[in-house]
């Protein structure tokens, strides 16, 4: 992080940024070696930031070509737009504001039998503030 300044935009700026091409190392990228050998950009955070920032400040979504692997993005845009539209039309406080307990959830990875309903099968695992002492982090292998 760069030191914070008192400017409106002076807080929590990253060292790697658009002006220095996120410190991309072309030799490393050519090498295809090590965890950053594909991008040549060090760290997951910088890799994400470089991609997001390189689209421009607000990308024109009409220029995209979304495929089947983009379903979550499509569905989430619709969910947010519908929620905002409902509020604009009715003025009623969004349900999620009144239900803080809906935010008690967890994400992560797991193994499931091939024939189960994933959403039902993970209900307890997705619930916050529940202990599952039998689980072993070694299963992740760092992923």
């Amino acid at each position: 992080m760069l030191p914070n300044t008192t400017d409106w935009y002076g807080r929590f700026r990253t060292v790697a940024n658009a002006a220095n091409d996120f410190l991309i190392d072309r030799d490393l990228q050519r090498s295809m070696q090590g965890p950053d050998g594909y991008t040549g950009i060090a760290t997951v955070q910088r890799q994400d930031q470089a991609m997001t920032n390189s689209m421009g400040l607000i990308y024109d979504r009409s220029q995209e070509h979304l495929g089947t692997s983009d379903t979550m993005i499509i569905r989430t845009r619709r969910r947010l737009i519908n929620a905002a539209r409902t509020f604009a039309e009715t003025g009623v406080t969004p349900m999620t504001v009144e239900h803080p307990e809906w935010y008690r959830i967890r994400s992560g990875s797991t193994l499931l039998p091939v024939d189960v309903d994933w959403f039902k099968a993970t209900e307890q695992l997705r619930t916050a503030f529940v202990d599952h002492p039998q689980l072993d982090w070694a299963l992740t292998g760092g992923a």
Partner: protein
Amino acid sequence: MGRFMRQYWIPALLSSELPAPNSDPVRVLLLGEQLIAFRDSNGNVGLVQNNCPHRGASLFFGRNEESGLRCVYHGWKFATDGACVDMPNEPAESDFRSKVRAQAYPSRERGGVIWAYLGTSDTPPPLPDLEANMVDNAQAGAAQMEANYFQVLEGTIDTVHAGFLHRGAMRAEDQPPGTFAEYMLRDRQPRYAVVDTDAGTSYGAYRPGPPDRHYWRIAHFLLPFYAMAPGGLLGGGPSGVACYVPMDDEHTMTFNLRASQSRQQAMSRRARDGATSDAYREFIERRAAQAQAG
């Protein structure tokens, strides 16, 4: 969209940005609105409009003194709730002071984050029950991004990129055998299930795992600007939450909420011990060091 977002509590600053009573005021840009944050001599946080209601000079230059922020231009002083508590340039008998208020927003502090409510309800709603911000070992960090908040958020719910952008040079056979890391790299084209939920949307991306099992990566979008990523072990402790707070349309302050992790550190240690290649071991060690450095 801005009015919609104002119905929700919004992470505004890290508590550490206002480290002590009467510490320096901070310029905060939130949903395009310029605010001055200060911690008064009682430790309470104020979030008030930038321009003094008198003639518009910035309260950033104010003196943070005895339970209020005093504009240095003519000495008007405001409490954390926006009330004008002193107006020394007006005649002593004037009640003008009671007719002037600075726009101020309610705030709460929890888990290292100062939350703001910019909405219209007289009684602010409860804070969202985000586990990583509520546990005893709650930690918070922040990073500014130069892009629209939703563009940044989309990167976190785009699961397929991880096998390319973050792991494009890594091979399945170098991973600890029988782990998520191995399954992920054996198949870079997961299939997908997406559902609407009470609070937003969720996806499960699945690939072949061990015999008769699928390896699932499960993640969430929560209204209005939260994302929870699919890394780590589902059910293995509080999940990190990324809050993509719009500073304005083109700048995002990402607040990362997480539980400081004995468990995650254990995960890294175990993964390193089980790693089969030097490159992977280095990778895990670097990740662990980064996690500690924040």
